[in-house]
């Protein structure tokens, strides 16, 4: 009998979907596999490929104890196809088919829509690995390097998850799209990734932490919405991906938190009280809080753009079709069809920002973005707690969602982080205080010196409170390959 909880290793591709008896899909995946391995090998610098990294590998989809930790060489990581356990008698949670049995096969009428959603999600997964490919060269510790690689291999697995769906359910078109997922590449002029934020650089570790905190959280929200899909295989895939995603945001939140912690400690040690005394603080070899705030502004706003237009036909169609739900759809108490409901969205009328009610169905993106903002605010509060404990007077803030936007009603208009509409001159005068400048980037870059000794940390970041897998502080998370 098919074991749907424990991962089967009887094929080259670990899975809990019975690949060994699904010859057609197995063949397709095996054909795709070498291209993937090439992509991986070409991406990550060679000495890290040969290093032994203390990684978790999924061995089950049981929410309790799904992973085991061990040293692995990344190219030998067991990327696999893992779906959360099926829920018995699951129903389509939303839209015009709400209450009907969930689809186990792709409904013909929604094929194009489903495929597009899967391709867009799939496109983001390898993109972040591409963006982060050189970071190990400047890792502030082996602990951080290991976290980076953990995130990377899991994004790689997320790609596998999407490719599996394409291969299994979308025939020749799906296989072609799966190939294109490896053809596009972040920042490429030839074939860039589909979404803007995934073509931006991740030039330093603070960017990486901000990215995993803010942009992976967009990923989380999208996965949450797709986990509510009436197309059951997609729902199950995304539910399992979410268990992995939590760690990515943990890496981001603690990474930023540890950076803040170290800055505040260094200020106290040097007797600097004014967080805006940037030069003096930077002289200590730590990143001043205003610069961290600027990085936050940048990554938060880039991530907001990933939610698309506030009022969106595509999002409305997907919800109504039952292909993509809302955040926590199953806990919401309404008709799950939104035939009469409205939702307030931002608009810009006669020079003023207002929120006005539109049919809730068309405001699905706006709603998910609001959920995202609430979710993202949590960590910011915890960062402020860290600052507060050290006695420094500074508060991190999420900028107003109108600030620095390229998509939606705010796009191409000038706002400050408080949401005030500005003239070009006002904006030019303020922008260096709100977004990282080239000089800020250069300064951060100057701190990015690798620290490869077990238990040692770069001077700009504090050590973590507890180790991964409860390992002691001096644990050798990566056994570096020395040529």
């Amino acid at each position, binding site marked *: 009998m098919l074991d749907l909880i424990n991962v089967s290793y009887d094929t080259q591709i670990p899975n809990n979907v019975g690949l060994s008896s699904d010859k057609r899909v197995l063949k397709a995946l095996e054909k795709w596999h070498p291209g993937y391995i090439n992509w991986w090998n070409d991406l990550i610098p060679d000495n890290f490929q040969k290093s032994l990294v203390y990684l978790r590998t999924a061995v089950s989809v049981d929410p309790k104890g799904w992973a085991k930790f061990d040293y692995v060489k990344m190219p030998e990581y067991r990327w696999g196809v893992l779906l959360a356990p099926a829920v018995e008698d699951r129903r389509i949670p939303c839209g015009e088919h709400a209450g009907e049995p969930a689809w186990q096969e792709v409904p013909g009428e929604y094929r194009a829509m489903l495929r597009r959603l899967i391709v867009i999600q799939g496109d983001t997964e390898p993109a972040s690995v591409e963006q982060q490919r050189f970071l190990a060269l400047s890792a502030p510790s082996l602990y951080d390097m290991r976290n980076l690689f953990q995130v990377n291999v899991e994004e790689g697995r997320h790609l596998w998850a999407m490719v599996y769906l394409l291969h299994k359910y979308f025939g020749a078109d799906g296989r072609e799209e799966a190939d294109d997922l490896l053809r596009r590449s972040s920042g490429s002029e030839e074939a860039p990734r589909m979404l803007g934020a995934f073509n931006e650089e991740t030039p330093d570790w603070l960017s990486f932490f901000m990215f995993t905190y803010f942009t992976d959280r967009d990923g989380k929200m999208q996965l949450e919405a797709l986990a509510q899909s009436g197309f059951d295989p997609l729902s199950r895939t995304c539910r399992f991906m979410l268990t992995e995603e939590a760690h990515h945001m943990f890496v981001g939140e603690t990474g930023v938190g540890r950076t803040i912690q170290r800055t505040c400690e260094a200020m106290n040690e040097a007797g600097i009280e004014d967080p805006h005394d940037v030069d003096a603080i930077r002289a200590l070899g730590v990143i001043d809080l205003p610069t961290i705030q600027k990085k936050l502004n940048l990554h938060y706003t880039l991530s907001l753009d990933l939610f698309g237009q506030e009022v969106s036909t595509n*999002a409305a169609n997907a919800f109504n079709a039952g292909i993509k739900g809302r955040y926590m759809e199953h806990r919401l108490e309404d008709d799950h069809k939104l035939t009469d409901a409205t939702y307030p969205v931002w608009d810009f009328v006669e020079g003023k920002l207002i929120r006005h009610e539109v049919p809730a169905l068309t405001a699905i993106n706006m709603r998910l973005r609001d959920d995202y903002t609430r979710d993202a605010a949590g960590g910011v509060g915890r960062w402020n707690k860290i600052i507060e404990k050290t006695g420094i007077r500074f508060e991190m803030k999420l900028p107003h969602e109108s600030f620095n936007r390229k998509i939606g009603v705010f796009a191409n208009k000038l706002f400050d982080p408080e949401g005030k509409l500005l003239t070009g001159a006002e904006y030019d005068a303020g922008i260096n205080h709100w977004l990282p400048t080239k000089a800020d980037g250069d300064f951060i870059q100057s701190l990015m010196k690798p620290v490869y000794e077990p238990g040692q940390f770069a001077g700009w970041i504090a050590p973590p409170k507890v180790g991964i897998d409860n390992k002691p502080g001096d644990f050798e998370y990566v056994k570096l390959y020395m040529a």
Partner: protein
Amino acid sequence: MSDTSTVSQDSAAATHAAPGRIDFQTDPSRYRHWRVEHDGPVAQVFMDVDEKGGLFPGYELKLNSYDLGVDIELNDIVQRMRFEHPEVRAVVMRSGKERVFCAGANIRMLGGASHVHKVNFCKFTNETRNAYEAAAEESGQTWIAAVQGSCAGGGYELALACNHIVLTDDSTSSVSLPEIPLLAVLPGTGGLTRVTDKRRVRRDLADVFCTMEEGVKGRRARDWGLVDEVVPNSRFDEAVAERARAIADASSRAAPRKGIALTPLERQFNEDGSVGYSLVEVTLDRAARRATILLKGPEAAPPADMAALEAEGARFYLLRLARELDDAILHLRLNETELGLIVLRSQGDGAAVLAHEALLLQNAEHWLANEILHYWKRVMKRLDVTARSLVAVIEHGSCFAGPLAEILWAADRSYMMEDEFEGDNRPVAAIRLSPGNFGRYPMANGLTRLQTRFLGVPEAVEAAEEQLGTPLEAEAAREMGLITFAHDDIDWEDELRIFLEERASFSPDALTGMEANLRFAGPETMETRIFGRLTAWQNWIFQRPNAVGTEGSLQRYGTGRRGEFDMRRV
């Protein structure tokens, strides 16, 4: 439950406030949606639609989607390219926006527009597509579509009307005709027809293509014949520039260095709805549902030679007349939709009209003569597809000669004054034929109006050709079959009145259908298929609840809810 109660935006769109008069005249200083860059023989036309620049309230022109206002500017560009920039041999049409070439006609605009507006909108966009498509053959000006980003529906139709399509191979950009799966209407701006007739895409592949929302990208787009070349994204600008340069170099025609300025029309709109131009007068009789267009003959002799013609430029009689008549027809089509009859009159010296045309015909190789002749052909085609009853009235003192005589055969019927009328001392009504009537102004079916008229009696065309330049009075004209009726002083007024009253009483729909069928006898061409078959089906679909009912696709579009279909095949 009605949609309007839940969808505030759509209900706003569904009741478009009546706009002011739609004006077809514009110039580059007023463009909101396009930008043109010139570099010698290569011009680049950037589509960069201003979201807030819609012609009606209630929708935003997102993602380079277009409405009539956007197309009016494109029409102006096409026209100016030919007259003001004859040095241009290759025109690159591309997007001024990132990641989208053009998303097609704006759906909310279509959802909110009246049937009348939709049909007229589609007709005009079709005419504009035809105009730049023909520019290669007629003027040696080849339009090239440079496609980056999504190119969907009407966006792909814009590209299809270009004579070369370059698509970037960035693994995302695609061409598509998603109308059927997405909107339950047709790609009605020539899309279906050009895919099979122009690009010769195999019909089963076309069937696949036209039912897939996501379209086709990269090599497959080329293999299926949907585009001409697929180039790497990093080389895109370079490849497009090379292609444009090569096409410009290959153009055999020696390009003139300098064009003429299309100066603003002399035009006045009056309170009573009449419009006065320098050579055209439009008067209205709303009670009788009738507009009368009076065309005036030349006031002076033609310029002596081509240099003098270029110096006259836009003031030259036939060009001025063409521009004014063109504008008058469009004005009546879009702004005076209840006037079902158009009476076409003329007054002036027929011999002088022939003299003006003769200058062009004798110098047909000259770029400006060539342009004016082609333009007159386009205006006559515009008349051919105008969905009003067209009646030519050939009075004493009229000048239906050569190019103006085409109007007689574009009309559904004609009435001519016979013999002297009491108290009327104008010259007796006469028609004059010119060599131009035998090939310079073909219809959409590829035949001249006379060939089409005499499909069953080709010898009548030959007989007519023997009468070049002769003033043909009513009796001769009737005998030769050039007019419908001739009436003398006694019958004239009554006959005309009774006919006009009767015509005005028929169902406008039935008349439109009948006229469109009778006007285009003879062979099918891509153009007749677009205006006939494609447009007729589209207009049928535009009337059906599956598309336009309150539960139909167009109304539902954007709400997230799908159209509800009556599943019976008709």
